[in-house]
């Protein structure tokens, strides 16, 4: 089997150089897509037949909620790989992903609440979708707190990996909560197997916006991870050489 790519990628120096090359492209593309998606969605799509203009929060809410879940899955997989193979870079990635995921999770909860007031008539209701999403936020906060609470980096990495694995069970619960139980939250609008229940002129800006948010969080993730690499590897010769070259 060819493990060389895997090993090379897990070297902090290689990753730092490689991500430095991707960073401006990811950033530019993210900016272009977010601006296009949000401007199109917020200003140029027609209003909804029933909700009028208040539905437009979907262009913020759906990308955030989707990212909050995707980032958690990515975090759990990275943490598991780091746990089994003891890869330093994996643990750095986990520590960078948690705050990003927590932010998007909070954004999804807040934007949903603002939409819920005019649409449902309440800010909050303890239905399965909203509650499981709140649990996701607490999982993220728990991961951040656990890492901060343990001084030894290796112990912290192990503890976080196990917590991340335990929490992953919540992801299918969030996703299918609207199908398994009676909830106030509606079912999924964007469907992969059947036709989405949204008019094309609203769906396209929404998909652009989702792609833009994904790239934006990739951009933020790379920025954070590069800073983390420099901070943790500051005693190595390559970082010293790099910093020496810059000063």
């Amino acid at each position: 089997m060819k493990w060389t790519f895997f090993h090379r990628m897990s070297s902090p120096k290689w990753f730092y150089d490689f991500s430095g090359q991707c960073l401006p492209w990811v950033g530019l593309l993210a900016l272009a897509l977010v601006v296009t998606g949000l401007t199109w969605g917020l200003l140029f799509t027609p209003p909804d037949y029933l909700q009028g203009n208040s539905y437009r929060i979907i262009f913020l809410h759906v990308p955030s909620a989707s990212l909050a879940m995707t980032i958690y899955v990515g975090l759990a997989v990275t943490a598991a790989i780091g746990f089994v193979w003891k890869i330093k870079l994996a643990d750095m990635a986990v520590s960078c992903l948690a705050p990003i995921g927590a932010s998007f999770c909070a954004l999804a909860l807040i934007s949903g609440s603002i939409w819920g007031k005019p649409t449902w008539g309440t800010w909050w209701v303890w239905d399965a979708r909203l509650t499981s999403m709140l649990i996701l936020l607490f999982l993220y906060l728990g991961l951040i707190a656990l890492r901060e609470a343990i001084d030894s980096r290796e112990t912290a990495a192990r503890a976080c990996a196990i917590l991340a694995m335990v929490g992953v069970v919540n992801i299918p619960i969030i996703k299918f909560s609207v199908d398994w139980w009676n909830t106030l939250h509606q079912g999924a609008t964007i469907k992969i197997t059947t036709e989405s229940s949204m008019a094309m002129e609203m769906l396209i800006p929404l998909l652009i916006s989702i792609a833009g948010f994904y790239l934006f969080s990739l951009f933020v993730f790379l920025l954070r991870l590069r800073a983390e690499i420099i901070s943790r590897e500051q005693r190595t010769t390559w970082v010293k050489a790099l910093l020496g070259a810059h000063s």
Partner: protein
Amino acid sequence: MKAVRKQRLMLLGFIACGVAIASGLILTALQENINLYFSPAQMQASEAPLETRMRGGGVVVPGSVKRDESSLKVNFQITDGEGVVTVHYDGILPDLFREGQGIVAMGELDKTGEFHATEVLAKHDETYMPPEVQDAIDKAHSGKNYSEKSEGYRSVNTKGTLAPEQKS
């Protein structure tokens, strides 16, 4: 793969399986408590508690909304396609409340099987479209006998939510 790595991988596998099974069992046991509301069919089958605060939900039956002339009192029927329950409410209804709309009401079920609500929330469905599309659909359905403008394309499914009607 080295033995120690295999061991760690198996440990993670066991944790994941254990947690999945445990949460599956807990969620199955709590099935009734996790459901946000009782459906009209459940209320009629006496599966819902009487004279206890709980939620009931369903689709407002078209033509069943009766408003009191001099107060905010209103009563209407909700259905999930199987059962029908009458709801009494005294208060301001959400903007999205209309006939054919899914709602979730908080209140008590009395002994005669009627629901007295203290709070009514509108349940939104997952369909989004511009008003012109809705008008076109209404026009296409105008030959049929529908009383209210926007129910034309909707039908009621068993979950008490609204689903777009199959093209006939």
